[in-house]
């Protein structure tokens, strides 16, 4: 009896305020889509970091024969200079962050070079002496790049220090800014959603003042009086959240999985499984929104 009664009350309330209900659904849908997008962007960044940070190295290019770099004034790197650089990399302030160092000779660099550009005519003019020998350093923590670079760059015999991670960091910073943007929009929309849910619940409570008045009079508990209103808000918000999940799922499935990963396939992308990971969070936020709005409103409009 109770459950049936509450359900019919909820149905009545939702239908009576249909346009408000729809607007609550739409606002939560849009706001949670932004929240979800922000979350997916972060997951995307995480995936790329996992995938790429394992592979990135700091490359210390040593001077070749005819380099114009000031640190290469003495010509090709000498054995002394080389030993000097190795000693610097083995020094106590750097050593803990270096996982291992791999030395690439001129000959190896030349072979790799020829392999990479084997069909191109201009490579014929390049000789082994044009190649740099180099140290390829794998770091235990890729974030500590600057420390290693500071130690070796500028030393005689070092032409250039390159960190592949820097390239990625630019991309990550773009994605992080996109996350911030989505997050900011989400915050504004969430505020709008709270206000809208509050208004909707208030309207609903006012339009049923006669009923709630009688309920209070005959001794219905406060919880029982407020429950239909709370559930109304929660149901509308949850429908909005489900739509947001659906929207994100479609977006990921058709934009990312089908289109983006077909055209740029060397990046690991978020997939629909990640959307499902985000889904409970979105639904949770929706319910939280509705709960907060209900608490704020109902204490004022249906008090005993």
């Amino acid at each position, binding site marked *: *009896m*109770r459950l049936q*009664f509450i359900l019919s009350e909820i149905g009545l309330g939702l239908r009576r305020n249909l346009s408000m209900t729809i607007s609550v659904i739409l606002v939560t849908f849009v706001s949670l889509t932004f929240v979800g997008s922000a979350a997916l962007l972060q997951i995307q960044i995480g995936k790329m970091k996992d995938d790429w940070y394992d592979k990135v190295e700091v490359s210390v290019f040593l001077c070749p024969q005819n380099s114009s770099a000031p640190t290469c004034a003495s010509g090709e790197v000498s054995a002394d200079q080389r030993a000097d650089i190795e000693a610097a990399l083995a020094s106590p302030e750097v050593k803990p962050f270096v996982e291992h160092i791999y030395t690439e000779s001129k000959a190896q660099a030349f072979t790799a070079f020829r392999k990479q550009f084997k069909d191109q005519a201009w490579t014929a003019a390049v000789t082994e002496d044009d190649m740099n020998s180099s140290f390829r350093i794998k770091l235990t923590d890729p974030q500590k790049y600057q420390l290693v670079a500071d130690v070796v760059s500028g030393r005689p015999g070092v032409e250039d220090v390159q960190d592949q991670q820097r390239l990625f960091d630019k991309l990550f910073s773009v994605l992080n800014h996109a996350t911030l943007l989505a997050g900011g929009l989400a915050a504004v929309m969430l505020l709008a959603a709270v206000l809208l849910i509050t208004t909707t619940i208030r309207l609903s409570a006012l339009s049923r003042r*006669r*009923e709630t*008045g*009688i*309920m*209070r*009079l*005959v*001794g*219905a*508990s*406060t919880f*029982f*009086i407020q429950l239909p209103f709370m559930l109304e808000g929660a149901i509308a918000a949850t429908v909005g959240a489900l739509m947001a999940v659906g929207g994100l799922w479609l977006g990921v499935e058709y934009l990312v999985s089908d289109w983006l990963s077909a055209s740029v396939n060397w990046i690991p992308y978020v997939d629909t499984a990640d959307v499902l990971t985000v889904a409970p969070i979105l639904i949770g936020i929706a319910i939280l929104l509705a709960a907060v709005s209900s608490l704020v409103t109902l204490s004022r409009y249906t008090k*005993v």
Partner: protein
Amino acid sequence: MIRFENVTKVYARGARPALDRVSLDVERGEFVFLVGASGSGKSTFLRLVLREERASAGRVFVAGKELGTLSSWKVPTLRRQIGAVFQDFRLLPNKTVFENVAFALQVIGKPRHHILTTVPDTLEMVGLAGKEKRRPHELSGGEQQRVAIARAFVNRPNILLCDEPTGNLDPTTSLGIMRLLDRINRTGTTVVMATHDDEIVDQMRKRVIELSTGELVRDQSRGVYGSDR
């Protein structure tokens, strides 16, 4: 059943009290008329019993509970022991007679079978058998008030509070309502009725409590409406 000990109620700070040091006792099963001019404090008295208001000073006891110290989550339990009827009926226009009465039981979580047996019994008792499917606007004023009384009484409360229940009704219809309230009183329910209707008070010869500008000026068993008669 109802006991007021030096009860004062002030709505706005500095204003004249709506009730001024009122003390009285209403025993179980009594029928009491509450009379007095508009603004004399009759409605405030009823609101205090329902714990819609709290006394500013003094103590109110209803059904053995001191309402001043009653925590708000226990208020619904208190109200389940009190029925209330008003001048304006307060029925739900989009519900049938049956649904209006059943509503009072549904919202306090009574089981379906209980509702299906109790509601028809109560409707028969108030003389509305056969009109279960009507809506309030299809009924006369007297019949609407009977629905309201059925709703107030369907949970068999110990106390029935009536705030000018005959205020909107013609004398003949009012008499019918009074007979019904008398019958309810005979089942052991304490009835407190605020009214302006001197004919009814004079006819019924029940206890009369008169309030004037918030003060208790008369408490007379088997009394009449006007104190000068």
